[in-house]
């Protein structure tokens, strides 16, 4: 695996389905900070679920005007069912075809398992990565690092 992209790197652009009839293009979010949260799979156990946690914290992210995008190799229909079940209020991008291409571009794909790392990127309004973090796969990284990075952006 190539190394995770670090602060200072330009965030590779992508255009991925966020539901069966809608695409999200990263560069179209220019002008505001973007939190890109790679996670291994939809439907992990609920109470410790990273996306459910971020859903809950969304108002704190919005104080910074930041957009949160979840991303995994699950398909758009899977994301749609998962988002509906968990009452998620932010988009989940499907890195589905070619599988894991965007995770590879960010250096966070696990070839052996066929899914991505639990990795976080905070991208500034100009599309430059300002903070990245790869968590042990079984440890939900929480949101303290993201909020600190957003604080730094405002300095």
């Amino acid at each position, binding site marked *: 695996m190539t190394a995770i992209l670090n602060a200072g790197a330009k965030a590779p652009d992508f255009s991925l389905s966020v539901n069966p009839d809608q695409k999200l293009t990263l560069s179209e979010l220019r002008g505001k900070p973007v939190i890109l949260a790679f996670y291994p799979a939809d439907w992990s156990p*609920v*109470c*410790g679920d990273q996306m459910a946690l971020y*859903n*809950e914290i969304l108002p*704190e992210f919005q104080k910074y005007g930041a957009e949160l995008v979840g991303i995994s190799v699950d398909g758009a229909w899977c994301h749609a069912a998962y988002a509906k079940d968990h009452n998620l209020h932010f988009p989940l991008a499907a890195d589905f075809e070619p599988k894991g291409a965007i995770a590879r571009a960010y250096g966070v794909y696990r070839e052996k398992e066929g899914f991505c790392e639990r990795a976080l990127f905070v991208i500034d309004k100009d599309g430059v990565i300002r903070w990245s973090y790869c968590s042990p796969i079984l440890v939900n990284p929480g*949101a303290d690092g993201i909020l600190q990075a957003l604080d730094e952006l405002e300095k």
Partner: protein
Amino acid sequence: MAKLSVAVSAKDHRQGDKSAPCTLVEYGDYQCPSCGQAYPIVKRLQKHFGKRLSFVFRNFPLTQLHPYAEPAAETAEFAGSHEKFWQMHDLLYENQNRLDDDLLVELTQELQLASAQLLKALETKEFEPRVRADFSGGVRSGVNGTPTFFINGQRHDGAYDFASLVEAIDLVLE
């Protein structure tokens, strides 16, 4: 490793002595089944460590998953304003399987508190700021699901069965 960003203070709900060599902080949600499982484990830990352990509970309701988590947290805070936080905390977990609006009223009456006052407090969101403050502090501390435990300020990333927590607490007591 994530660290507790809001130090334990007199504002917290604490069981045990503040000079105890180990302080266990739990961020929990009254409707979360995993927190329900952790509840008797914490009781056992308190028994096991006695005076060496103090325990603090802070609110971390996952409101998008658990519709009664927020009103339950506010009900415990309401009881807390009448010096009955821990009684309500315990009753909520002991009756978690039937948590709903009626139960909140029932438990309030059981503790001989005025249910009309509770309903008013819920309606006016009197205790919401307190619950939100706990939540925000938790987010800043790296709470990553419920329950999340901090042992002397360090997030406990391991399992939260009795043996694992005993082992982790023993380490800081050594």
